[in-house]
């Protein structure tokens, strides 16, 4: 390739020019040189020949004119572009959050000449996104404008968490291709709130138009870097959210407590007062304290009122923990657990409540009487409103996606969490049999407080919610304590207890990637399918 436009290093010897060199013929044979000369990069064809053309083996003359009816090669392959072509491309946005989250999105037509890096030069700082770490998406709008016939993922987006405050402002942004060709543009960096930026990025992750099976490729897209950056960024936001909670307790002093019910609220305030009414009818309802931790700050006033009414109406011991931002399921539960007053934590979703009037009492009896191995981490049978079983423990399956749809990626395998008995008849004896299972849902999770603390609670690496329950169960399994599925019976109006938006789908995709990353190998070895081979799960506890 010609070093179009660059001067030779000092002292480099110039090749002699043959006596029959003809400027006109050289420029005609090498149109890229003609262009480079026209652009002023070289004074003449002769200068180019001296510095590069001869070394590149370019023809400088055609003896007797061109032979007829056949092609002659006038330069070595790949070296015939004195001025590499500027790619077509555009930047949609560069956004920078207060704590240093950096997001770039745009497109570049690199169908033939692949993208190498996106470089940002800003007053005071610079950075380059490697193309390998970018997510690639389809851009039907640009594809149409370019008249591309073959689908190619010309869109890209990237995210990086710098972990420090950076100044926004004007940015020289360079899209650099493997050939060295580049497209340079000047963009204004848009300053953003941290939470807003996380929302934008997660929404893009969930909503981007990925080639091939879209969901797989969304997950695959973050594997080479974005995933880790997002987890890092989100962990910082989570720590910030739980660092300054508002806590209010509604109770009468002097009550002996045996268990701590922990409920994480999100989006829907009604569930506090509804769940309190249903739990209050339970035998031994007063032996529990009820800790409601809320990830939706906009519900604060409403929840304070409702907790006060519920306490006045039912007299149960309620602690309300209000967070200033959404800290996600894991961190909110960890925080609530740290405020519990008993040795037994019972994590319930807001849309979970007992199927019969004695279940809350039975839970306490079970915890008091069964062997510790069967109560340290305890699940329940959960039912839909329609009467069918919804959950009798969880196991793992794998989804495979062939790599050919994903441009040079390897085949992708993603773990999928499945519930035993989803949709099964209510009284399926095999499903309801108390037994050790690979995992249980966080919708109902009874756990000895010391064991929860030994495990360091839920991993706060998971964004918003999903997979942190299975993660905790697998860490427990690795530490020698598999989850135990009991025959306690609760309703779970699955998915009705919170409010989800696009960014939560993005969070779920990150979590799936993370879960897969952490547990894929163990699952492949010993945890695949409804009857996994893991030795801790063998045998009958009875």
């Amino acid at each position: 390739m010609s070093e179009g436009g660059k001067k030779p290093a000092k002292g480099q010897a110039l090749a002699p020019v043959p006596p029959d060199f003809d400027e006109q013929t050289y420029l005609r044979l090498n149109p890229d040189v003609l262009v480079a000369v026209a652009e002023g990069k070289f004074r003449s064809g002769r200068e180019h020949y001296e510095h590069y053309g001869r070394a590149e083996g370019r023809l400088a003359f055609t003896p007797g004119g061109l032979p007829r009816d056949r092609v002659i090669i006038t330069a070595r392959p790949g070296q015939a572009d004195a001025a590499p072509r500027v790619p077509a491309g555009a930047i949609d946005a560069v956004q920078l959050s207060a704590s240093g989250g950096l997001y770039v999105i745009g497109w570049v037509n690199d169908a033939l000449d692949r993208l190498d890096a996106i470089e940002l030069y800003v007053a005071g700082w610079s950075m380059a996104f490697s193309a390998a770490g970018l997510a690639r998406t389809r851009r039907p709008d640009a594809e149409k404008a370019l008249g591309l016939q073959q689908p190619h993922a010309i869109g890209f987006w990237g995210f990086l968490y710098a972990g420090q405050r950076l100044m926004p402002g004007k940015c020289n942004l360079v899209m650099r291709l493997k050939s060295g060709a580049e497209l340079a543009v000047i963009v204004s960096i848009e300053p953003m709130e941290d939470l807003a930026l996380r929302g934008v990025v997660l929404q893009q992750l969930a909503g981007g138009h990925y080639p091939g099976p879209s969901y797989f490729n969304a997950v695959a897209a973050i594997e080479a870097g974005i995933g880790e950056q997002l987890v890092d960024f989100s962990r910082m936001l989570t720590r910030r959210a739980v660092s300054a909670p508002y806590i209010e307790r509604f109770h009468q002093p002097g009550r002996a407590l045996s268990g701590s019910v922990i409920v994480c609220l999100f989006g829907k305030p009604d569930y506090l007062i509804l769940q309190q009414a249903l739990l209050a009818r339970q035998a031994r309802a007063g032996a529990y304290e009820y800790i409601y931790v809320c990830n939706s700050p906009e519900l604060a006033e409403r929840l304070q009122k409702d907790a006060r009414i519920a306490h006045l109406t039912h007299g149960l011991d309620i602690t309300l923990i209000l967070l200033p931002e959404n800290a996600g399921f894991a961190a909110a539960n960890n925080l609530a657990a740290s405020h519990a007053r008993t040795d037994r934590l019972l994590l319930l979703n807001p849309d979970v409540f007992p199927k019969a009037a004695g279940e809350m009492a039975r839970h306490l009896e079970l915890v008091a009487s069964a062997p510790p191995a069967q109560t340290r981490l305890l699940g329940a049978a959960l039912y839909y409103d329609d009467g069918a079983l919804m959950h009798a423990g969880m196991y793992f399956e794998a989804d495979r996606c062939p790599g050919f749809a994903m441009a040079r990626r390897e085949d992708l395998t993603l773990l999928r969490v499945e519930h035993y008995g989803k949709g099964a008849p209510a009284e399926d004896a095999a499903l309801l049999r108390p037994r050790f299972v690979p995992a249980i849902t966080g919708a109902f999770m009874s756990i000895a407080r010391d064991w929860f603390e030994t495990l360091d609670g839920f991993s706060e690496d998971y964004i918003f919610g999903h997979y942190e329950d299975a993660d905790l169960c697998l860490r427990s399994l690795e530490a020698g304590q598999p989850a135990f599925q009991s025959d306690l019976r609760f309703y779970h109006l699955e998915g009705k207890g919170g409010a989800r938006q696009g960014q939560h789908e993005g969070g779920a995709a990150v979590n799936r990637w993370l879960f897969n990353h952490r547990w894929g190998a163990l699952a492949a070895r010993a945890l695949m399918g409804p009857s996994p081979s893991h030795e801790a799960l063998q045998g009958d506890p009875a």
Partner: protein
Amino acid sequence: MKVLIIAMYHPELVRGGSQQVAYELFQALRDMPGIAPTLLCSADHNSPAMFKSGARITGFDGRPDEFLFLSHDYDYVWQKLPLPLQAEAFVDFLRRLQPDVVHFHHFMTYGIDYLSLARSALPAAKIVFTAHEFLTICALDGHMVRKTDGALCDKASQVRCHQCLPQRSPEEFFLREHWMKAHLAAVDLFTVPSRFMIQIFADWGLEAAKFRHVPNGLELPAPVRETAATPRNRFGFFGQLIDAKGIHVLLEAVTILRAEGFSDFSLEINGENMHFASPQRRQEMEAFFAKEAAKPLEAQHVRFNGGYHHSQLAARMARVDWVVVPSTWWEIFCLVISEAWACGRPVIASNKGGPAERIADGETGLLFQLGDARALAETMRRAATEPKLWDKMHRAITPPPGRAEMAAQYLDIYKDLLGALSLAAQ
């Protein structure tokens, strides 16, 4: 014995059946020796002038023992009031009053959880709940009429309710049922004005043994002095001009009779609140009345008289022979039947709910297939033409329950409940 009667709205601020019955009971109990009744009625945005700054409960118009519960921001979806200050004021009110019996005639504008709240404030008091409709079961105004096809609903379920109110999920209705039942558990005894309701509540899962049947009693108009008019071909409608009252069925029956060439009858429509009817039904009624009024006098069969005060009732009743109750919902009790009977008017009614229970078909009145205009037309034609039918039914009418009779029944219930309490204490 101290009795607290709780009603939705004061009947003198907002008219309606349940508050009327609650007020009749309050008045009757006040006349009984040894009974100290108190009335707590809600007021809301319908009566803004009743609100006093910072007050949650206040008096009413200088009347002893009558109070207003100042409700606002009510949550009609879950039937609850999201105001802790109101809840605290209610608890204070109950504790100060220390009633032996708390008798709810409604929970709307307070919240279904006020049943539990009353139980929590007064653990020893007896709680009586009178159901004047099916609002605990049915989120669609408690009418139990299927929005899908207008059929009467005899069983709620999460999917069936979702079909009537598609914006709410089946799970929400499942939760609603549990939420309602959680608070109904605080009730010691339920009463209903008609027996058929007990079966519907029992099918829904409440214990039938906890229900008593207490017909609604009213101060009734004096009997009408009869003229020896024959034939008995004058029909009358009394009540609100809302969809569920079925005026459209009655007007269609008139059209059918005329098409059959039968025109020897008259119909008088007495009532108001046409603005609460659906736009379609309202338009139908208005068009019918306008077309009728444009006819020559001798061709007019239907006359629209508009609303009436209680004092005008007897005079209006005297102008008709039969009272027609063409309701298209589970008419719960039908105070109009009591009023018609008090005036000696036999009733022609839809064959469901309270009317079907109260009227012996062919003896004290005539029933027709609910919603079926052709069946009503046939029944009206028979009533207008069959000799001696009216006289037979007029004589068979039994006097409807009055206010004192109703209060006596309630008093027995209170005594039973408190007797059970004192027995338990021994």
